[in-house]
């Protein structure tokens, strides 16, 4: 995989981490159960996305090695 594509994955991975982080901060304040459920969904989906990116980057690194 070209280096610029790995860089892009790195940026996306960090972005998803910050989306999860913003939702996590929201969870520290949110009391309404439905709001909490939506924030928990955002955290879970962002983490799932990060997992996909890391797996993709991991196989790309192995292919380059």
């Amino acid at each position, binding site marked *: 995989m070209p*280096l610029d594509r*790995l*860089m892009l*994955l*790195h940026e996306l*991975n*960090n972005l*998803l*981490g*910050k989306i*999860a*982080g*913003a939702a*996590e*901060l929201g969870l*520290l304040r949110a009391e309404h159960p439905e709001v909490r459920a939506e924030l928990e969904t955002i*955290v879970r989906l962002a*983490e799932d996305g*990060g997992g996909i*990116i*890391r797996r993709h*980057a*991991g196989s790309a*690194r192995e292919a380059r090695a």
Partner: protein
Amino acid sequence: MPGKTVLLIDDDVELLRQMTAALERAGFVVTPATDGESGLKRLKAGPPDLVITDLLMPVREGIETIIDLRRRHPEIPILAISGGLRLGPGDFLNLARLLGADATLAKPFRLQQLVDAARHLLEQRSAPAAAAGRA
């Protein structure tokens, strides 16, 4: 950990904001900095109880910051954080460990993981001192 001071260094302004908010909510007093150079300058105001630093940063990157910090303040625990998906976060974090970081955390992480890691490091540091005090 009410009142424990943390020097927090990361060039990602949004992540810095999030980490600061989570640590402050957990009772830490946080001094944020966006690069190693300004982080080390803040040490002049007094050494913090803990330093948390990113590794890949402009101006003065984290590895250099850790080496400098270890030389000047060997007593301060250091938590190194890094993404570095490009080469594998383990590569940079292992290097940080070798050069003096006490613990590492790969990005992205849950903010609660960061708070737990900070607490754990400070507890580890205070445990031997407390034991010596009892002896």
